[in-house]
């Protein structure tokens, strides 16, 4: 246990897209700010596994804080995307009606709600849709276009917020899960499982799915979060799909969509399943089947396209129904930023600004003199003689890998490298290039292959060094016997 106490003005708990946006906005002020993340990298929770849509908020509950922040975010995004060089495509979204009932839902609910949220929807006839998007189900009866919807890279966004904050003096502590929170006079004491001790004037609880548990550590049981699982299928062949295609939503979720990926390919999903575990990211045969059934109604040709990957994410559903942004019941020095459902990415620029504003008012912070608004181009660190390909499937060069390793927030895990560069994301899933990447981790960052994880602790790709004192003949013989007799295991 470290006895040294680190004094900070503001401590953000949680390195997801929301926590990192808040950190960046706090870094605009003359204050000592830090962020704690329990995983070995930022963006390991809800922020990494979602449909990557920058959503207009056309269907948010009008009058809610969520609707307000989504509307503000619409104004902020162009500048954020520009300053942080985030890959973004304004694809627009096409909502398809497959029945007259769907059409009346659009007229009676979707369009009026969008108008109250300040988002314009454009009605389209069946023929207009099929002319522009010949790949959609010919059995549709009509639909609407939501022009302002787009897709982004969620990891890039989160990392860019965080790196920009670090460039402006913020500190980031990885693999530091919060274990104790004690409210004291004038400050809040926060202890981590990694043995760090903080005395923070204010604490921001942006712990995503675990925000209720972090609140609980401080003695605040004012809200509960439950996980909702979303499974996705990634395909590389887009079948011509260039817009987000969505069904008319039901009460539980927006339904299963076809969403272009900003780097190419298409995402199919998500499911919306109430689950009990906050760490169960497994995909299921039923879930994948449900996705295909949903997709068949939108883009039938997409059903049989080969997939390169499936995954699941969990989003936080709050007991209150809206975002929970405000002081804890135990101290006004602890702010919760919780229950952000599935709109955290879309609203992140506005959430960051709103929360930083609350902190500024509470602590009377003044703007920092020299805030660096623009993040340097990520690949500017690639050297001209590092152009050889390492990741064959995705044509990722050695220079791109090394640039990520030289960045202000270098990867500490293989997944961290994957999300920074795109390496290992292709058809072979890294089975070809991973040894080379393990070598580069060792050469560039001094990481022993035995201590290199895929993502979380104990997810090592290498189990041991080969020792030759093994029962080799016995195992071989057993193997031969198994093959001969047809007994396996």
């Amino acid at each position, binding site marked *: 246990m470290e006895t040294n106490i680190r004094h900070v003005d503001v401590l953000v708990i949680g390195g997801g897209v929301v926590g990192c946006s808040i950190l960046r906005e706090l870094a605009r002020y003359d204050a000592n700010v830090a962020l704690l993340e329990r995983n070995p990298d930022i963006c390991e929770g809800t922020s990494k596994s979602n449909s990557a849509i920058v959503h207009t908020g056309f269907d948010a509950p009008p009058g809610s804080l969520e609707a307000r922040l989504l509307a503000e975010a619409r104004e902020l995004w162009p500048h954020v995307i520009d300053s942080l060089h985030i890959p973004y495509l304004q694809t627009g979204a096409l909502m398809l009606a497959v029945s007259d009932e769907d059409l009346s839902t659009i007229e009676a609910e979707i369009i009026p709600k969008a108008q109250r949220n300040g988002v314009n929807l454009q009605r389209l006839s069946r023929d207009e849709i099929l002319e522009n998007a010949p790949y959609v189900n010919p059995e549709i009866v009509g639909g609407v276009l939501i022009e302002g919807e787009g897709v982004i890279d969620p990891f890039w966004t989160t990392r860019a917020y965080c790196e920009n904050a670090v460039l402006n003096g913020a500190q980031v502590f990885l693999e530091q899960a919060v274990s104790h929170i004690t409210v004291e006079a004038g400050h809040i004491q926060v202890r981590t499982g990694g043995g760090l001790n903080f005395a923070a004037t204010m604490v921001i609880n942006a712990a995503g799915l675990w925000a209720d548990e972090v609140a609980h550590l401080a003695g605040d049981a004012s809200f509960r979060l439950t996980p909702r699982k979303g499974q996705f*299928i990634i395909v590389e062949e887009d079948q011509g799909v260039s817009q987000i295609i969505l069904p008319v939503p039901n009460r539980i979720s927006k339904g299963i969509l076809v969403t272009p990926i900003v780097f190419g390919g298409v995402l199919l999903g998500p499911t919306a399943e109430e689950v009990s575990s906050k760490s169960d*990211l*497994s*995909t*299921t*045969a039923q*879930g*994948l089947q449900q996705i295909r059934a949903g997709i068949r109604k939108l883009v039938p040709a997409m059903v049989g396209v*080969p*997939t*390169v*990957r*499936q*995954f699941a994410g969990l989003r936080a559903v709050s007991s209150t129904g809206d975002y929970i942004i405000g002081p804890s019941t135990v101290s006004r020095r602890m702010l919760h930023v919780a229950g952000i459902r599935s709109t955290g990415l879309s609203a992140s620029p506005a959430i960051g600004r709103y929360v930083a504003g609350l902190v500024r008012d509470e602590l009377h912070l003044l703007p920092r003199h020299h805030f660096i608004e623009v993040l340097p181009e990520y690949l500017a660190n690639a050297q*001209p*003689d*590092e*152009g*050889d*390909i390492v990741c*064959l*499937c995705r*044509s990722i*060069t*050695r220079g791109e890998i090394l640039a990520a390793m030289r960045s202000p927030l270098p990867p500490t895990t293989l997944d961290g490298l994957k999300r920074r560069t795109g390496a290992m994301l*292709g*058809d*072979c*899933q*890294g*089975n*070809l290039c*991973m*040894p080379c990447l393990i070598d580069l981790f060792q050469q560039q960052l001094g990481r022993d*292959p*035995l201590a290199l*994880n*895929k993502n979380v*602790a*104990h*997810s*090592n*790709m*290498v*189990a*041991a*060094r*080969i*020792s*030759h004192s*093994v*029962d*080799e003949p016995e*195992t*071989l013989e057993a*193997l031969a016997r*198994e*093959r001969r007799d047809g007994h*396996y*295991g």
Partner: protein
Amino acid sequence: MDNLYRLAIVGAGLSSLSAINSGIAREKTILIDYADATGGFLKPALPAPGFETAWDLIESFHMPAGIAACFKTTAVGLLPALAPGEPHTLIARRSEGTVEIHTRRILIACGGLELTREHAQVPGTRPAGVITPMLAHQLLSRGYLPGRRAVIYGDSNYALATSRRLAAAGVKVTHVGLDALLMQILGFPRVEVVRFLRDGQLFDLEADTLIYAAGMMANTHWLKGSGIITKTDGAIEVDGHYQTNISGIFAIGTVTSPSLDHTASIAMGKEVASLLIGGFS
């Protein structure tokens, strides 16, 4: 690489080496490969019982004079000739950047990559320890064990060779053939259990590693948009003379048929050489 080549060969694996040994290339030929030496994607698994001819081919291979061999040089695109008589252009990446290779003929022999559990949409968790033989062999070659207790799933000689080598390195190996269906992967952050279905019965195997060796796919990503016709499985379509739909562009080996074994790849190399030397154009 400013020259105009007679022939550019993409890939230095078995089919390519066999074609070169059979005299396909005499002069003004360029050979490029992703790796830093000849041998192709099978090389990390060799030597292995059952692969003696492949090993002999790689070990005894000598690059003929007249072939410019460029390693760590990866083809990333192909622009076929715009008009008859004009050369084809290969786009490749190497350490100094992107290069263009102009050539009369191209022989595509860039092999295949392994299928993963993702292609088969095997449900479950995504833990560390779910790998293919390619990764297992490369780790073993570097002196590392990919796990302690592995289930290897696949029927090919390649899968068997992988089992033997892992067992010899000290890994407890259980081999499951493709007559069983891989149903689910359980455990996180490492694999804990692999679930199969055979003869209507589910059975679980405890393991920290799953080596998925259920097959290959053609390595044709880089040909997207080139106009070269591929089949639904991604393999290149060729005629009886190994010519693609584009005149002067040929393809052999796994890239034309992902289920091909190494002896057939070697035979194909010989055959294409005799056809091309015989004046076929």
